[in-house]
């Protein structure tokens, strides 16, 4: 089967600024695919090139095997849910949703039927006479979705659509979006900087950094086996040890990552078993987060590790006393992940 979207060596520069530095991607039919990355990584530019708002400087964009790189937005079979929703302020909810059908010259009776279906699907039937200014954030979101879905696009593009909503509503909408996507079995391309959002909703995701794709995979693959230091740091919290600091733990200078929740805080004199790694150090910082506590430990062998411990029995008073203590960190060796690539780069960026 043809991929729904295919990017071949796509580049985009704005003057001297390289926004997208040669991206290859394949998004399969009917999958929920996310582009995840920090702001300025080129994810939104990629989306805008697929939508037709930007022309790639080099490379090709194919929709269902057809090269659309030079087609204007209105001739592409994709629709977009914008970050600010971009609802037409002078039109009612009904007119907003109907717009795509109207400009495509669909007959009046079919328009009525399809708009009614879309409004019902997004539970907007009671609001159809309202103007966007009279709606709540969540309602506007649903209007934006109904409007984008009315043309039955091959791919629905979503540009951080949940960014403006509060946490609770965002979580509800995440589930709604995923359910909707499965029900329609439509290809969704979702752009976000929120790693939790990307992990929860996506079938697969691409992690982007500085205009490049660092890794493509399922949420579990990306989380469990980060391909680069950047991915390890960006998707979930992660520790990266390299050089001497890595050598002090594993005996090899090769860089590796270890997730904070895999590490156990132990008394200094505990001996690790044969399958475990360990490192001694001093607790520099303790952050009590309610359900768990985050400890930052300066290692004797150089570098630092962040450890997350569930607060099984300890109170906030007790955990805070750990500051300044010497401790031993122990974890199962199989959780160490060797990484290549941009460790150094990633470190510098953090500063």
């Amino acid at each position, binding site marked *: 089967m043809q991929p729904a979207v295919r990017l071949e060596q796509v580049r985009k520069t704005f003057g001297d600024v390289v926004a997208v530095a040669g991206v290859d991607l394949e998004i399969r039919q009917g999958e929920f695919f996310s582009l995840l990355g920090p702001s300025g990584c080129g994810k939104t530019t990629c989306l805008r090139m697929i939508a037709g*708002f930007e022309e790639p400087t080099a490379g090709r964009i194919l929709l269902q095997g057809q090269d659309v790189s030079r087609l204007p937005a*209105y001739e592409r079979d*994709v629709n977009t849910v914008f970050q600010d929703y971009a609802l*037409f*302020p*002078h039109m009612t909810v009904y007119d907003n949703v109907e*717009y*795509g059908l109207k*400009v495509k010259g669909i007959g009046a009776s079919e328009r009525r039927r399809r708009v009614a279906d879309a409004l019902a699907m997004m539970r907007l039937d009671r609001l159809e006479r309202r103007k966007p*200014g009279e709606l709540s954030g969540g309602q506007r979101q649903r209007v934006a979705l109904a409007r984008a879905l009315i043309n039955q696009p091959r791919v629905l593009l979503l540009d951080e659509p949940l960014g403006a909503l509060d946490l609770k509503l965002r979580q509800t909408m995440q589930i709604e979006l995923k359910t909707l996507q499965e029900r329609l079995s439509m290809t969704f391309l979702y752009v976000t900087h929120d790693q939790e959002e990307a992990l929860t909703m996506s079938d697969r995701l691409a992690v982007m950094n500085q205009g490049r794709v660092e890794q493509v995979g399922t949420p579990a693959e990306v989380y469990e086996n980060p391909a680069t230091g950047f991915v390890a740091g960006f998707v979930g919290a992660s520790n990266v040890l390299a050089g001497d600091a890595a050598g002090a733990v594993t005996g090899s200078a090769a860089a590796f990552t270890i997730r904070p929740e895999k590490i156990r805080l132990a008394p200094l004199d505990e001996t690790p078993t044969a399958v475990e790694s360990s490192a001694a150090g001093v607790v520099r910082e303790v952050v009590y987060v309610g359900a768990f506590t985050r400890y930052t430990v300066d290692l004797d062998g150089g570098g630092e590790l962040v450890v997350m411990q569930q607060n099984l029995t300890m109170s906030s008073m007790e955990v805070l006393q750990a500051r300044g203590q010497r401790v031993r960190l122990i974890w199962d060796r199989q959780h160490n992940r060797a990484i290549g690539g941009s460790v150094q780069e990633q470190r510098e960026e953090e500063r």
Partner: protein
Amino acid sequence: MSVRQRVIEPRSVQLGMRVVTLLVLLFLYVPLLVIFVYAFNPERSQAWPLPGLSTRWFVATWNNLEVRSALVTSLKAGLGATSIALLLGSLAAFAIHRFRFFGREAISFFLILPLALPGIVTGMALNSAINIGGQVIGLSFSLWTIIIGHATFCVVVVYNNVIARLRRTSGSLVEASMDLGADGWQTFRFVILPNISTALLAGGLLAFALSFDEIIVTNFTSGSEITLPKWIFNNLRLPNQRPVVNVVASVVILASFIPVYIAQRLTQEQPVRAAEQAETEPALQAVAAS
């Protein structure tokens, strides 16, 4: 937009501010009111108090052919200047808003400048330009030169109103429209035009009001054509004509007041996400500066 803090003033300050406000308003409007009252004077000579009220000078004015022809000239000049202003002003606003090009800021500045230039300078300059034009391409002083003269400052008014509206209209609206399958023309027709229509109307009304009572530039560009303000100016010193002048002046005041009032109402209405509109449209700034 931050919510304006309500400062609690002592009573005496509150009272003082009210008195000052009232005095300023009286200072501005009492002279206009006097003209209105005198327009209903039954006598030819002006004396206070009025011996009675009469509309005889309204009838006399209506039947005065000079006044009628001046009114027609003023209306034609106003409509002509407004049409040019709507066309050029909105096109300039679209260009400046939509495209980034070399000299963009400069063009924006030079479009607004005529508003601040003293009318007498604009008038002089146009006058000599028309004289030279007369020698070179046979241009002569006429209704058209009045229209061109008025257009110099009317374009700004429309430009300012339209660009302010475009700036507060989200750019993603255009993208959303294209995304949903609308081509450039459909996007203009269904999305851009409805969003700027009140700004266009307001700009047009203000341009008309500016043109209708303009005299300085008109004096330099009209040649022998007589507009209503010019007629007033020419007849002000003739005691015989005084009652008719009062009536004409009252009409000019009304003809300026109504469009400005409507224009202000139009630009106050906030169809695009009210909370985000820090920028007030410059409708009345324009009038104030001219």
